C-alpha cells in the first residue's frame, strides 16, 4: 500500500500561500484555525527560504502517543487522523507535535481550546465517506475519491508534493540532481525518521 507523505521543496516555494488558501476554502476551515501555513526564514535576505507546513502525518506520531483518550488512528495509507467525538480538547497533542499542527477553535471553558482540528491529508475522518457529518467536522475527503490533497494540487510552483513517499522522494531526487543542490526535505527526519539520500 502507499505510504502517504508531504514534501515541500523549499528551493521552489515562493510563499504565494495558494496551498493555505486552497485548504481553507476546500474544508471551510473556520477563522483562527490554520491547518496549513507558510513560514519564511531569512525573509528579505539572500538565501531566503519558505516552507509550507501542516501536519506531516508522522511515523510513530507524537500526538497519538500523548492523547489521554487515544482519539488518534492511522489509516492504511499511513495518514494520521483523529476523532472529534472522542477529543476532550486538553491540548496535549499540541505540546507534543514538533510542527505545531493541532489547532483549536478556542470555544472551551474560559475561552480555551475546544475540539482539536488539523490537516487531514484531505482524508476526512472516522465518519462515513462523503457524509455531511464528515464534511462538517473534518472537511472534504479527496483520498476516498482517489485524489491527492488539494494544497499540493494547487501549488503554483509544484514545490509542495503529496503522495506516496517513494514516488515524491524520487521526484525530489531528480530535481536535486538537475539543480546540483537541494535544501533537503524539510521535516522528514523529524516526521518519518529518514532523510533523502542524493
Amino acid at each position, binding site marked *: 500500500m502507499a505510504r502517504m507523505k508531504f514534501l515541500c521543496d523549499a528551493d521552489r516555494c515562493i510563499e504565494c500561500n495558494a496551498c493555505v488558501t486552497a485548504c481553507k476554502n476546500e474544508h471551510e476551515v473556520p477563522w483562527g484555525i*490554520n491547518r496549513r501555513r507558510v513560514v519564511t*526564514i531569512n525573509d528579505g535576505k539572500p538565501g531566503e*527560504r*519558505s*516552507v509550507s507546513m501542516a501536519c506531516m502525518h508522522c511515523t510513530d506520531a507524537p500526538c497519538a502517543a500523548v*492523547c*489521554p*483518550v487515544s482519539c488518534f488512528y492511522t489509516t492504511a495509507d499511513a495518514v494520521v487522523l483523529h476523532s472529534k467525538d472522542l477529543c476532550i480538547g486538553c491540548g496535549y497533542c499540541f505540546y507534543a507535535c514538533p510542527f505545531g499542527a493541532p489547532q483549536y477553535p*478556542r470555544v472551551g471553558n474560559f475561552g480555551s481550546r475546544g475540539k482539536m482540528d488539523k490537516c487531514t491529508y484531505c482524508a476526512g475522518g472516522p465518519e462515513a465517506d462523503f457524509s455531511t457529518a464528515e464534511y462538517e467536522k473534518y472537511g472534504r475527503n479527496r483520498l476516498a475519491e482517489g485524489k491527492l490533497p488539494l494544497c499540493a494540487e494547487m501549488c503554483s510552483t509544484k514545490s509542495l508534493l503529496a503522495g506516496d513517499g517513494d514516488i515524491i522522494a524520487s521526484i525530489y531526487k531528480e530535481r536535486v540532481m538537475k539543480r546540483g543542490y537541494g535544501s533537503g526535505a524539510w521535516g522528514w527526519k523529524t516526521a518519518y525518521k529518514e532523510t533523502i539520500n542524493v
Partner: protein
Amino acid sequence: MKNWLKTVLAVLALAFVATAPAAAQNNNFNPTKEAVKEEQLLNALKPGDRLTGRISIPDEKAASLIQPTGQEWRTFHQQKLPIIGGVAILGMLGLLALFFLVRGRIRVEGGFSGETITRFASLDRFTHWLTAGCFIVLALSGLNISFGRMVILPWLGPETFASLTALGKLAHNYLAFPFMFGIALMFVIWVRDNIPEKIDLEWLKQGGGIFSKGAHPPARRFNAGQKMVFWIVMGGGVVMSVSGWFLLFPYLAQNGVSDLQFFTSIHALLAVLFIAAMLAHIYIGSLGMEGAFDAMGTGEVDLNWAKEHHGLWVEEEQAKAKGGKVAPGAVPAE
C-alpha cells in the same frame, strides 16, 4: 604633452575597466544553494527553543516551523512520569499496608473515657472538607488524564472513557477554584498553630511515637507530623495552583508552547508526589489511628485520646475554660 598624458590615462582607465568586471563576475555564488538548511538551523537551536520564521498570519505563535522540545515532553510524560508516579503512589500504598500489618491500628491506650473535648470548630471542619473534597476529585480526574488510557480505557471502551474523561476534565477545571480558595482559607486560620517550634524536634526524635506503644511525645494543637502536612499542602497547593492557572488560561503564557510544556510537566510531577503524601495523611486520619477521625468528623474528640496525642493542647484548653491564659508548659497550682 597634454595629448600624450590623456592617451596614457585613457589606456590605464581602459585596463582598469577591463579587469574589474572579471573580478566582480564570480559565477560560483548562488544564493538559493547557499541558503540555510534544516540540519544547520536545528543544530544551532538552544534547548527549549524553536525554529521560527515570518508568516502572514497575525498570530505570532504560528510562526514556529519546528519545535523539537515536544519530543522531550512526550518522553517525560509517557515514560518518566508513569515510573515516578507508580513508585510514589503504589510505593506509598505498599508502605502503608506494611505499616498496618506490622503495627496495626494505633489504639487509645487508656481506653475511651467517654468525655469529649472540642477539637475543631465548624469553620475548621468546613475549610478542611472543602479543600479535601475538591482534592479527591481533582486527584482522580488528574490521574485519569495521565494514566487513564493505560488503566481504564481497556475496560470501558473508547466512547464511554472519552465521555468520562471529558466530564473529569470539566470537574478538574471548575473545582480548581474552590480548591484554591480552601488552601488560602486554611492558611489564614491555621498558620498560627503550625509554626515550627522546639518541641517539634522532640516529637520527631521519638518518631511521633507511632512505632512503639506507650510513647507519647509532646504536642500542642498540631504535632510536628501535622505541621509537615500543613506545609506540604501549602507548598504543593501553591505550585499546583500557579502551574494549573496557566493550563486553564493557556493564552496567558508569554513563550507559547514552551511555557505550557513546562507547566504541564511541573503540574503532573507535583501531583503524583502530592497524592502520595495525602494518602499517608488520609491513612493516619482514618484507619491508622483510633479516635482520630472524630476530630474532623464531628469536631469532638475523646479526652483520653486528646491527652495521649495532644497533651499540651488539652492543658491549654482546660486552663482557658477555667478562665485566663496559661503560659505554655506551666503547671496549674493545684
